[in-house]
């Protein structure tokens, strides 16, 4: 019965009772984000669309638009649309594809797994930011408009960009966690801003809506008032759905 013998050569006893570290779980989550068809193509799409956006801006933009600052703002638009979808799928696919049954059997501390997903999401967001910087710089160099301050980029704006990409990702993760189903989470994510925008047309609550739906600006350095609006938005779009999601994920039986 040699064929049945379970090989024991490569695995030692080391680490048997050692909890997988958060960095190891994050690496695994990054791998999981890339190794499926959906994940791979989404991230390739972010890359491709970033390049195309920069090319269009460089080729067809108004001369005044060909500054590095403006190129970068445009280069981040594909990421702003697609990063939340990647974030949603990071969490919801565990339910839609039923892999939660495997993932949580290996990591029973469920909030740790969600934390690893959030960290992996932030890494992907930062990678998208670096990609945008590189191609925006290339685009600016190629277009090389003859205008003053082509390369100027206020440090405040860099901070806003970083907050923007990481929170875009976290919004997706929070939505995925709260809804736990890929398709409805994506639909609701894209429908909500439209619905909130529609609310904005109601005269009596004018001025309130900006508090519900204000992501950090990519174009101009924000005032304290605008930051306050963004913080409220983070509470509503990240903290609240994430809390609902963590409650659902930890308190309830796994229905996968």
């Amino acid at each position, binding site marked *: *019965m040699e*064929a*049945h*013998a*379970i*090989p*024991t*050569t*490569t*695995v030692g006893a080391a*680490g*048997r*009772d*050692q*909890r*997988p570290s958060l960095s*190891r*779980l994050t*690496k*695994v989550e990054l*791998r*999981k984000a890339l*190794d*499926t*068809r*959906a994940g791979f193509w989404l991230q390739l799409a972010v890359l491709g669309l970033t390049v195309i956006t920069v090319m269009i801006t460089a080729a067809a933009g108004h001369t005044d638009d060909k500054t590095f600052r403006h190129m970068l703002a445009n280069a981040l638009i594909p990421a702003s649309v697609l990063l939340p979808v990647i974030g949603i799928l990071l969490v919801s*696919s565990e339910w839609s*594809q*039923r*892999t*939660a*049954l*495997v*993932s*949580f*059997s*290996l*990591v*029973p*501390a469920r909030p740790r797994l969600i934390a690893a997903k959030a960290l992996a999401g932030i890494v992907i967001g930062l990678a998208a930011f670096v990609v945008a910087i590189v191609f925006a710089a290339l685009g600016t160099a190629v277009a090389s408009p003859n205008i003053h301050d082509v390369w100027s980029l206020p440090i405040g704006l860099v901070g806003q960009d970083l907050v923007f990409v990481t929170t875009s990702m976290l919004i997706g993760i929070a939505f995925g966690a709260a809804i736990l189903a890929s398709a409805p989470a994506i639909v609701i994510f894209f429908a909500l801003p439209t619905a909130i925008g529609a609310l904005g047309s109601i005269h009596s609550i004018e001025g309130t809506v900006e508090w519900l739906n204000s992501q950090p600006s990519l174009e101009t350095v924000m005032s304290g008032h605008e930051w306050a609006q963004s913080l409220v938005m983070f509470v509503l779009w990240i903290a609240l759905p994430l809390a609902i999601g963590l409650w659902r994920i930890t308190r309830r*039986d*796994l229905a*996968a």
Partner: protein
Amino acid sequence: MIEAEKLTKRFGGRAVVSDVSFRCEPGTVTGFLGPNGAGKTTTMRMICGFARPDSGRSAVLGGPYRELPNPGRRVGVLLDASAQHAGRRGREALAISAGTMGVGEARVDELLDLVGLERSAARKRVRQYSLGMRQRLGIANALIGEPEVLILDEPANGLDPEGMRWMRGLLRDFAERGGTVLLSSHLLHEVDAIADRLVIIGGGKIVAEGSKEELLSHTGTLVEADDRAALGRALEAVGLEGREADGGLLVDADPRAVGVAARDAGIALVHLAPAGDAGLEQLFFDLTSGAKEEAE
């Protein structure tokens, strides 16, 4: 070591598992047997920390499953072979589990060989896998961390006869090395061939438990005569009931009593023996259908 103690689970007021208690010792294969909907999956999910029992408790290796620091290295779990990402390649699914539990990726190829998944099959996406291939992938996934305990829900489902024989050898080997195995099935013959001990569940309750020999000793006698109707009447005359079964009448008495009754009635027998497998099948059917009616 797996222990379940008075596990109870209700869904919408109805108890789908009630007071389920059993133990699985190292070195044994325990077959968890019951018809579909009897509560096997719910019980196993409670043991693995996926469902909260309404009352009762369970332990794997001495404590609750969810308190194991790195469960993959101690307990191999296969709760649903279809619970894999359809868009992920088979080998990649194993590599992810290996990465999570901190086992080198070389182990993945060992396991692919062990479960008989060809390299070309392992490169395919799980969407293209047959149920049998998914089961093999799931068993490989359960074994990656070199666990001491295996918890497998319907692992033989979708395996062909060759696959069944392979799994029997694999699990026997695992138990002989001191491992503990709990596997469920709704088909008696699947479990019968592999398990040392049987835990039979019907309608959410344990209806019988013991070694195969223990269960068989209560299954009665299989008897056959050319004139089956006359044999039936002869048994009735001495207060025994003969029920139609494959290859004769099944009688809830020992072979001696049945033989005597036939001789007294002057009936020539063509078969008289302890009921064995036929009896076990009848027992399984009686126990689980009885419990089902009770539950309804």
